[in-house]
């Protein structure tokens, strides 16, 4: 197992280098005046700032040298300075990231729970009206623009019906709980401030549903297919033949085997959540990195958007690594390859 882990980590290195090469070259091939994109028009007219920036990023050196300097700065956590916020991009990211994590965890729990449940029911009732209904729910989920769904949910469930609180992470009358994890629900619970925790939870529900729906459809589809495949296996027939109750057959024999393929989609789901967060956070005024990315790109704040790009790529790669490792833990056959 350790060998497997080490090999997976080693494979990661070229990908990470490739990702930084990609962001480096996008940054390098900005048409027009690259410095304007990185520093902003106002700073560009100040020769002192320009000279300092050129020195810091080694812009007068050769390309490979520039890349090494870029990497060195990155490893020290220096992603440049956000033009809009006028402070290091890393500070912005660490401020906004916990909100995204909270939203993504909520959405992930909903989509895995709901998706597996729907997939299992669809497989057991395959080719019935229930199956068709679940298929429709999944297909609608993958056909609906996330930004539109978020908007309509907010208009209907908040503005018209008043069932859910409005945008943001907390009612404006409440103060955020003391930051330990950065997740308001968890922090509220830790501080034993039930009102804040409950309020944060209510604020979380609607955006989490919006964000998780797409992935839920995906997971439902995959787990349905996996369930059907296992249901047709010989050992299931044996289990039934020896007189086990259907519930036991499904939970013990089928479900545990069918969850393996589903696990691979969860890795993809994390990436999908990052993409969806861009849209969901914008509409729900959720102060996470998705909204930060949109605001930055609206202001052509190039260093900020590159920071988000790097961070999300890194997350995506890590999510896939975690899935791979889990897969190796659960299925010994994978390790041998």
């Amino acid at each position, binding site marked *: 197992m350790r060998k497997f882990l080490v090999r997976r980590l080693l494979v990661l290195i070229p990908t990470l280098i490739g*990702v930084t090469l990609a962001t480096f070259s996008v*940054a390098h*091939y900005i048409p027009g005046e690259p410095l304007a994109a990185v520093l902003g028009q106002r700073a560009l007219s100040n020769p002192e700032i320009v000279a300092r920036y050129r020195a810091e990023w080694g812009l007068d050196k050769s390309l490979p040298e520039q890349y090494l300097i870029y990497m060195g700065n990155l490893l020290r956590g220096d992603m440049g300075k956000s033009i809009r916020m006028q402070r290091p991009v890393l500070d912005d990211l660490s401020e906004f990231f916990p909100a995204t994590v909270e939203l993504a965890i909520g959405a992930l729990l909903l989509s895995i729970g709901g998706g597996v449940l729907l997939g299992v029911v669809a497989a057991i009732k395959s080719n019935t009206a229930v199956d068709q209904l679940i298929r429709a729910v999944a297909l609608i989920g993958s056909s*609906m*623009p996330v930004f*539109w769904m978020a908007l309509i949910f907010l*208009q209907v469930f908040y503005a018209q019906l008043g069932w859910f609180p409005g945008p943001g992470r907390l009612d404006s009358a409440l103060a955020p709980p003391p930051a330990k994890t950065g997740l308001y629900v968890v922090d509220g619970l830790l501080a034993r401030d039930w009102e804040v925790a409950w309020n944060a939870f209510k604020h979380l529900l609607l955006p989490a549903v919006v964000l998780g729906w797409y992935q839920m459809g995906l997971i439902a589809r995959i787990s349905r*297919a996996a369930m059907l495949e296992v249901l047709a296996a010989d050992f299931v027939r044996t289990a039934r033949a020896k007189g086990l109750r259907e519930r036991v057959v499904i939970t013990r024999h089928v479900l545990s085997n069918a969850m393996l393929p589903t696990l691979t989609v969860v890795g993809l789901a994390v990436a999908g959540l990052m*993409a969806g967060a861009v849209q969901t956070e914008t509409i729900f005024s959720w102060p996470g990195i998705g909204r930060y990315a949109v605001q930055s790109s*609206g202001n052509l704040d190039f260093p900020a958007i590159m920071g988000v790009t790097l961070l999300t790529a890194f997350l995506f790669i890590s999510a896939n690594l975690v899935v791979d490792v889990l897969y190796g833990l659960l299925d010994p056959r994978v390790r041998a390859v």
Partner: protein
Amino acid sequence: MAFWIPACGRCKTMDTALAEPTNPIPAASGLEIRERKWHAVRAFLRTPTSIIGVLIILAWIAVALSIPHWSPFDPIKQDVVNRLSPPSSAHWFGTDYLGRDVFSRVLYGSRISLPLAVAVAMASLLSGSAVGAVGGFLGGLLDEVAMRVADITLAFPAIVLAMAIITATGPGLENAMIAIVIVGWPQYARLMRAQVLSVRHGEHVVAARAVGASESRILIRHVLPLCISPVVVAVTLDMGNVLLLASALSFIGLGATPPQAEWGLLVAEGRTKFYQVWISGFPGLAIMSMVLGFNFIGDGLRDALDPRTRTT
């Protein structure tokens, strides 16, 4: 390689004939290939959702082609007196904050979205599968480099990378389309490469080489035709995704610019109008219907072309 359609004796025999695990290439005669195509068409038409998908897309094509002749209102003509009026017999979908007719604007939007989805998906398809096919067929350094670039591109969430590219190149619909192609080609490259790899050592390729066919002829005449069907499925499903991505980019202000009647932009224009749901509601429904159409068709095609996914 199973090709099994319920209630069809002919296919069952083919199923056993093709179940040879050591040889992935079915030694099918021209006649058999033609018959298989026919079976795929029948399987496609048997699924109700595929028919619905085809009807939706045909309807949008008809609208996109004919709308200038029968549109009830000019999509960019303002009528401030009647602004924000709810759906009525004159304005079926109501009017927006400048009094423009939402119905006309939504229908006109198909003239942007439909060609955009098709063109961008086709551009990704052509560039990606060219890279994948040539790389997979020839192998070597070129293949290695191309696949690493594809891997790296796929390591970014599509919308985030697209946003970064547009921030660098400047907002606008053309740059958004280019960005979507840049984030979209690797999936085709990978798919096509995997297909070519599974086919390129087939007996018929050896035979063609033995009679002296050139490499490019082998690739085009003997390898690519066997790789088409998964790519067709992928491109249909991708058209829906392209549409979602493009409208999302327009929505956040990086794609289409006002007063263009682009659906994502139309939704954005109703964003602050919490009590006039029709302004963003109907354009969103339009996006959803077109994406659903593409997804239904793609889904039906996948079931028809590759019945392994449709376990009974």
